[in-house]
């Protein structure tokens, strides 16, 4: 187990890990005390030096983002924590907040201090009621303990379940009470974000990583990870593996190594394809088992690190079926603002359905790729781009399987075999 570096997840195995008592027992809220005594700019510098990059997918340096906030402008500043975790496969913030909500609250205190904000908003997706309750209780406890309410406040906002609200500007619109649709940039949130005030929008994990950096120093954090991707992070392993779950490891670990930690692919099966960072990142195959899972490594191999949501699919899975399901998700979640995404996903689904049912033609594959080319990079925000990733990458690696659907007159797979209960049915 030596490859794991549990920091965020260090005490998740304790029954009361989510309580303020457990958190303080392990030194919690000492980092914020330390940070509050520091000059805000020194805090920003420390986060810059640590090399921490955004864990929400794009990997933008967190300290640099904080540094964009204009200082001395006599305006309110806001910190907004993006906890609208909605991407298929992505499941790191939810367990993090269930197991240790206080690390986020402490991170909020430090970040607010650094960017001179008096208030942080945590925007959490509405479906995860259990998490909402746990974070609410934690906020109340933090107020009771005096960590909040002394110049820094935290407000929890519950989203209404739109994937687009994970896009930072749509999140801000939603938080302001409008329909969540992405905003035109510029102005960027750092200049005119929430209520047109300078705003930092960070992912849960990014903010939660900050207390450890303050407590242990930038150099300590730098000592983990690779050249340009520093620190450790949560890899969320799901799908056809024997022991799925969260694996906190330094950036740059490979899937082969994580699979070893997770007891391997479902026994008796082999890896077919996987996503490195959720459904909107182009899929990988067993050829990428040794690709370093850091921002640069995944990018060089033609995908994106994204949210490090490693969805594992073994050879029983029909790639066409999986891609269609994802595409249906994007069609359902497209906000409707721009033409390529709104209209494109509508037609992508129809063409993919024809292909899955064996009623399409080989020409449909080219049409599909051409439509993706007309959506990718043409949409207003990244949702449209994400919708094309599974399609283009799956055709790249599994074109023959698409064609097999056509020659077979339908899907050649038995969908039951890919289910968890497949074994139970056979016996």
């Amino acid at each position, binding site marked *: 187990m030596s490859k794991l570096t549990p920091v965020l997840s260090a005490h998740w195995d304790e029954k009361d890990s989510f309580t303020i008592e457990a958190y303080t027992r392990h030194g919690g809220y000492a980092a914020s005390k330390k940070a509050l005594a520091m000059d805000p700019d020194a805090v920003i510098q420390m986060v810059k030096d640590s090399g921490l990059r955004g864990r929400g997918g794009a990997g933008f340096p967190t300290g640099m983002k904080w540094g964009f906030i204009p200082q001395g402008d006599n305006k309110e500043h806001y910190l907004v924590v993006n906890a609208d975790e909605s991407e298929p496969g992505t499941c790191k913030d939810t367990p993090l907040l269930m197991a240790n909500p206080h690390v986020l609250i402490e991170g909020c205190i430090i970040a607010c201090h650094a960017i001179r904000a008096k208030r942080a908003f945590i925007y959490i997706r509405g479906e995860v009621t259990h998490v909402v309750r746990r974070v609410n209780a934690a906020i109340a406890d933090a107020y009771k303990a005096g960590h909040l309410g002394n110049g820094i406040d935290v407000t929890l906002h519950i989203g209404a379940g739109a994937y687009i609200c994970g896009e930072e500007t749509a999140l801000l619109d939603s938080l302001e009470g409008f329909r969540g649709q992405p905003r035109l940039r510029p102005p960027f949130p750092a200049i005119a974000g929430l209520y047109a005030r300078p705003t930092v929008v960070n992912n849960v994990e990014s903010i939660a990583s900050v207390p450890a950096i303050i407590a242990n120093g930038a150099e300590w954090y730098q000592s983990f990870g690779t050249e340009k991707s520093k620190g450790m992070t949560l890899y969320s392993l799901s799908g056809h593996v024997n022991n799925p779950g969260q694996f906190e490891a330094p950036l740059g670990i490979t899937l082969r190594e994580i699979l070893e930690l997770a007891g391997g692919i479902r026994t008796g099966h082999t890896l077919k394809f996987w996503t490195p960072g959720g459904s909107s990142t182009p899929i990988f195959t067993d050829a990428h088992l040794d690709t370093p899972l850091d921002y640069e490594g995944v990018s060089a191999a033609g995908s994106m690190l994204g949210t490090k949501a490693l969805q594992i699919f073994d050879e029983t899975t029909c790639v066409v079926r999986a891609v269609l399901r994802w595409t249906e998700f994007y069609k359902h979640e497209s906000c409707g603002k721009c033409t390529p995404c709104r*209209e494109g996903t509508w037609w992508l689904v129809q063409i993919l359905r024809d292909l899955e049912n064996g009623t399409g033609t080989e020409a449909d594959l080219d049409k599909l790729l051409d439509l993706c080319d007309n959506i990718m990079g043409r949409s207003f925000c990244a949702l449209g781009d994400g919708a094309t990733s599974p399609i283009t990458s799956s055709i790249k690696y599994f074109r023959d399987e698409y064609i097999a659907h056509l020659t077979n007159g339908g899907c050649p797979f038995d969908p039951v075999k890919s289910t968890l209960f497949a074994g139970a049915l056979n016996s």
Partner: protein
Amino acid sequence: MTTTQESAVAVEMITVVIDGFEVSVPKGTLVIRAAEKLGIQIPRFCDHPLLDPVGACRQCLVDIEINGRAFPKPQASCTIPVEPNMIVKTQLTSPVADKAQKGVMELLLGNHPLDCPVCDKGGECPLQNQAMSNGHAQTRLDGYKRLFEKPINISSQVLLDRERCVLCARCTRFSDQIASDPFITLNERGALQQVGIYEKDPFKSYFSGNTVQICPVGALTGASYRFRARPFDLVSTPSACEHCASGCDMRTDVRRGKTLRRLAGDDPSVNEEWNCDKGRWAFKYVTATDRLTQPLVRNSAGELVTASWPEALAAAAAGLKGKRAAVLTGGRVTLEDAYGYSKFARVALGTNDIDYRARITSDEEREFLAAFVAGSSTTYRDIDSADHVLLVAFEPEEESPIVFLRLNKNFKKRGLKVTAVATKQSIAMDKLKADFIKVAPLSEPAAVANIALTGKSIILVGERASESAGLFSAVAALAAKTGAKVGYIPRRAGERGALEAGALGTVLPGGRPVSDAAARVDIAAAWGVENIPTQPGRSSSDILAALTRSELDAVVVGGVDAHDLPESSAALAALKKAFVVSLEIAPSSVTAVADVVLPVAAVTEKSGSFLNWEGRARGFDAAVADSLHRSDVRILSMLADALGNPISLASVSAAAREFSQLGKWDGARISFTPVSATSSPAVSGDQAILTSWRRLLDMGTLQRGEDNLAGTRRPTVAVISPKRANQIGISSGQQLRISNSHGSITIPVLVEDIHDDAVWIPRNSFASQALVALEAAHGQVVTVVKA
């Protein structure tokens, strides 16, 4: 002075290269607009030059590089301002941009129905046109399209075909950004996103028609025009709006002699590209079945019977010849017609007894007009540079909606400060976040006196200032004290022109005072007459009083509705007594008592011009080319011939030529004698002081026959203060009775921000016609009780 300062400020110009051609444009110009300057048309749907960029449709994608660094993907040219060293490649030179645009077009058409053969927009549709210029000839998308029930009414006058919508959000952005009426918004998401209304709040905006006009597809259509015509069957004529003094540039579309629709014209100095729904949709009065088409003469039995033109003119001349006669033109005359009336009164009737003001007036107002308004020019552009606008006796959205849009633009873009001295809070004041100085009716002058203004401020004063003694005097004093500019805004389209044409007892054409001998000589020489009557003329109320007292025998009346006059029953009795020649387009309370009725042309049937509140000429040609109706001036000229005192204005163009040759008066103006204010009457118990103004959409005669438009009227309500509501024991929605010795009005009450002593009612709305029912409008004591 300010203009030289402004022109001294150099605009920073930026040079960019688009498709290999250099173009210099002011800093901040969007790429799509810079391309237009080169004549390069980048296709677009959501982009509109008067709306904030949104970048939603993605049709205008182009390749851009700056300082040699290319954007990795095509950019929406409608959202990106030009920058130095920018090189743009549009669809004309970039295969990537061309493919991106064609790809977006294919997707837009994918879910768009093939309605073109029956769609109102077919033939003038940006989607149709750009699909031809920037799209594939064939679609590859052969699955199922989204389907919606069609169409749905989002108001009584606007219909929505949701499956035609390309979701460009022009309509919703217009309603929010320009009109501040965010009653429509986008709902749902993905391809099922759609424009919608809140179920309890339909799209009741005074400006909703603009959304139909700027819709780039046939998704929004006007209920009155839907399925009526194809664009290529229409003959379009540039025209001007006859409904109010805003002065909108318009386009009138006619098919086979019938006006089928009117659109807002494009005049950046005035209405930009907008107009109000009244201007757009209230034109059916022209084709009403009761239009007067033949002259009528009252026979010996007292009945109006059809007569030939020679008969009618002879009868009119006989009735006027040698009589003490006056002229009431009404406020809807064109400049040329007003000039005809003005000359007719002086030359044919030998009198200065002429007044265009068919409403509540005062001599204070008449002096104010002659002293400060005639020949002046406060403009929309002045609002754009004002530091503060004071509204006096003027409710902009109801009484001059384009002035409201201009105020709103300046409020939204640069936080223009607006102050309103009024008896009641209004929707427009709320939208403009105006400083509301609440006064009791008749107490306005004291409030006006204390407003802090500067030389860059503007006072917009409405015609209703004539209803509070001393108010025009207070405005004049404030302007003199602070150097603020005054804009006088009458309600009707013809009033400013009539003033300049001298259709007023104290003013000759060009703002020349009747009292000035040199001015009279000027005009007498130009007209080739011995002299101009020296005695200043009577005002409209004095003319009616003189008719009652038999000090006048006859009157020539233009478009006057007796129900607009302060004492309508007395006015009608006076007219009944006198010999009346009525020039009208349709039967009215005046034609009913007239001795000779001469039918005249409506605005779409004649050429001419209006002067809007700025004094700016708004010329128009006859939209209906083959109308048999004649303009007032031509008929007056024939009547003058019959009287033996020719005015020699045989055509509108002759009148226009002669008027412009007269030029403006450059001599001294009438000196203005201030009038002191009266105090508000004391009220107690169930007494209140009445106050009222007209709503944009009401019982006005020019709105007749347009039920779809009437459906978006604001509700008829009486407004009282919370304190009074408490006293009466009434709450919003319950019936309130407002009464005096003349009669009563019973309508639902709305408890709102109004002076405790006052009660407000709409002046001429359904069930609330103040001047008819109460013969009162502002400042009179009425009884207010729960009904």
